[in-house]
């Protein structure tokens, strides 16, 4: 048992924390809500230069040989000011799907430039009836000579409007729901036959629905035909663990803002923080936040585990916990702010919205609860 940060990890925390406070404060996120790109390419490049994007990748792929725990420390800081860059979507989920699914020459072509901050990737896996099962897709890829022809649609592709490369799942064999027969293709953003319908998300970010009717050369298939499920499933677990770490950053910030409000807001001639009913609510928020921190650490350690049972148990427990505790803290932070908390002008609502989105992404409470309860380790 050891939960101490190494000297390198302490440096990561202080560097990211300083950068976020100075360069990426909350007002910036407010501005980016109205920007059609939704993030800054320059900041993305800086993150690549600082080594943050490649932190959880092997050096052979252009990374820095760190761990998911290192990435989780960055995300926790990003949660404090709601950093808009696609760290989870590109530098964790899409990047690791690519790493796990494909061969070194494809890493060099698509992964390494992203880790340097030159490109953005995103994983396009969900469809209208996919919900959280990546094998439930209608998009098909058919072989035409050496080419592939993709037809179908993808929904809520995060940063799908701006990503340079889209990793698109398609069925090449098998029945709906079969893990086998799922393949992964990489598309350039300007591929003929790819139509993007840009979307805004509740938390001020950008996404897209995609329509696909495209012909791709054979080398756009990533890895072996029909064998992409494992890589996608692991990438989604990485996304879930990432949501827990960022979510902890969101929760601790919402808690700190709420405590600050309780210490300064006066009603009935006294600070409202003197009222026991409100004090105990604040303590309940603190308890949930501390437990969410514990489960986020657990998920970040275990998400890299080779044993899927261990991985699923820790990640699903943490994601369920995030949903329950995150929702509680976010909702209570609005409640304790009173009327001002319901205005768009006050910042607390931005944290409420981001938390809500984090509970939805990468498997919601129900999905992870069901998965947790179906693991062999759950039976006595």
């Amino acid at each position, binding site marked *: *048992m*050891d*939960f*101490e*940060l190494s000297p390198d990890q302490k440096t990561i925390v202080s560097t990211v924390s300083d950068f976020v406070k100075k360069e990426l404060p909350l007002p910036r996120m407010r501005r980016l809500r109205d920007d059609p790109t939704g993030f800054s390419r320059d900041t993305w490049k800086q993150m690549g230069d600082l080594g943050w994007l490649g932190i959880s990748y092997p050096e052979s792929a252009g990374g820095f040989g760190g761990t998911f*725990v290192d990435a989780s420390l960055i995300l926790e800081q990003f949660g404090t000011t709601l950093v808009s860059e696609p760290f989870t979507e590109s530098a964790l989920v899409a990047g690791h799907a690519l790493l796990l699914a494909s061969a070194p020459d494809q890493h060099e072509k698509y992964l390494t430039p992203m880790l340097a901050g030159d490109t953005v990737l995103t994983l396009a896996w969900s469809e209208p009836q996919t919900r959280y099962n990546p094998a439930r897709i209608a998009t098909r890829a058919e072989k035409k000579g050496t080419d592939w022809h993709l037809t179908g649609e993808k929904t809520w592709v995060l940063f799908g409007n701006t990503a340079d490369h889209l990793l698109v799942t398609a069925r090449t064999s098998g029945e709906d729901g079969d893990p086998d027969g799922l393949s992964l293709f990489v598309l350039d953003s300007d591929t003929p036959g790819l139509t993007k319908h840009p979307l805004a998300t509740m938390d001020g970010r950008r996404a897209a629905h995609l329509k696909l009717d495209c012909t791709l050369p054979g080398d756009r298939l990533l890895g072996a035909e029909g064998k992409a499920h494992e890589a996608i499933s692991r990438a989604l677990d990485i996304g879930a663990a990432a949501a827990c770490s960022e979510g902890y950053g969101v929760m601790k910030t919402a808690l700190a803002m709420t*405590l600050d409000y*309780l*210490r300064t807001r006066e009603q009935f001639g006294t*600070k409202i*923080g*003197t*009222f*026991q009913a409100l*004090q*105990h609510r*604040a*303590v*309940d928020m*603190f*308890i949930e936040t*501390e*437990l*969410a*921190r*514990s*489960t986020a*650490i*657990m998920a970040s*350690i*275990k998400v890299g585990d080779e044993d899927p049972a261990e991985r699923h148990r820790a990640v699903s*427990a943490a994601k*369920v*916990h995030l949903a329950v505790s995150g929702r509680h803290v976010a909702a209570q932070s609005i409640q304790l702010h009173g009327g001002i908390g319901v205005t768009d002008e006050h910042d607390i609502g931005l944290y409420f919205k981001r938390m809500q989105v984090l509970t939805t992404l990468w498997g919601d409470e129900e999905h992870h*609860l*069901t998965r*947790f*309860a179906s693991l062999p380790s*759950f*039976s*006595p």
Partner: protein
Amino acid sequence: MEMTFAPEHLAFRDEVRAFLRDAMPPHIRAKADVDANFTHAEIMEWHRILHAKGWAAPHWPAKHGGPGLDATARFILSEELELAGAPHLSVFGLSMVGPLLMEFGTDAQKQRFLPKILAGEEVWCQGYSEPNAGSDLASLKLSAEDDGKGHFILNGQKTWTTYAQYADWIFLLARTDPTAKKQAGISFFLCDMKTEGLTAKPFLTLGGTPAFCETFFENVRVPKDNLVGPLNGGWTIAKALLGHERTLIAAVGLSTRALRRVKRIAQTTLIDGKPAFDHPGFRAKIARHEIKLEALRMANYRTLAGAQLGKAPGPESSILKIRGSEIFQQCFELAMEIMGHDAMEWFNEPGSVPALEQWVPSAFNYNRATTIYGGSNEIQKNIIAKHLLGLPGA
């Protein structure tokens, strides 16, 4: 970061498990298997068995006869005992007055009392609460007056004195200076339960068992040698106990075992011919409990890893008592729900309900106490609000 125990600790855990397999007498094991209530005699029998192995007091240092284990091994030993359903040794001597005497007692007091606590030769109880001093403990009234001839004379009443009927000694807080401010006039005494004028009257708890007593003091003479720490310094001593063994306060092992029992009951209870364990609603409820428990376990591991490095407990440790006691209660609430009509069971002859269920209703009732004793959860929240969250006083 590392989430597994070190090899030497895993080896120690194997040693503990092997011991528990071999050393538990059959009649105790039979009760442990169905989580039945143990009698006082059975608890003391188990105390002697653990003492012979040197493990009655995992957290005692070697110089006082403890096994001298590090924080992680102490945790492992305690947790394995909980997981095995072994009788829970009385905490009042081993975990409360013992450690306090080590910190505040005179050499004579240590020599006189510690070996007998360790060996289970003297059983202790705690005299803190009074009828009008519960959460507001410092308003206690039991008086101790110096008779000028080597004794203090105690008059008043204590209540909720758990298992005082079996106790040989009581440690208590008494008012020695009625003119001082509340906390300032309190002293800490040790008192022989056989002293004239002292009577303990057991009464039934919600659980239907006589766990509590009212304890009356009528001109009870306590020798001055049995004052612990300075006169009027008792509050400091009582408060010191709050910081002890934070790693065990969550009782994750007990809740783990309780949840395992919930699952076993769910596997043998049928709903429409199928186990309740496979019923989607119950399965989801059980999973929610297990996830809550996993979060607590992880918070506990973080506290433990800090303790192993000799660090002061972090903010996560303050939540362990609150959440640990809540989860333990909730496990029994869920067991009761799954049991259906069997949940009405009340001390009927064995066989009236499945053995696994027999003690659940009593425990369900008694365990309302877990969120009350040791400083109610509301008091714990007051403390966190003030000291950790920096919220202003009223």
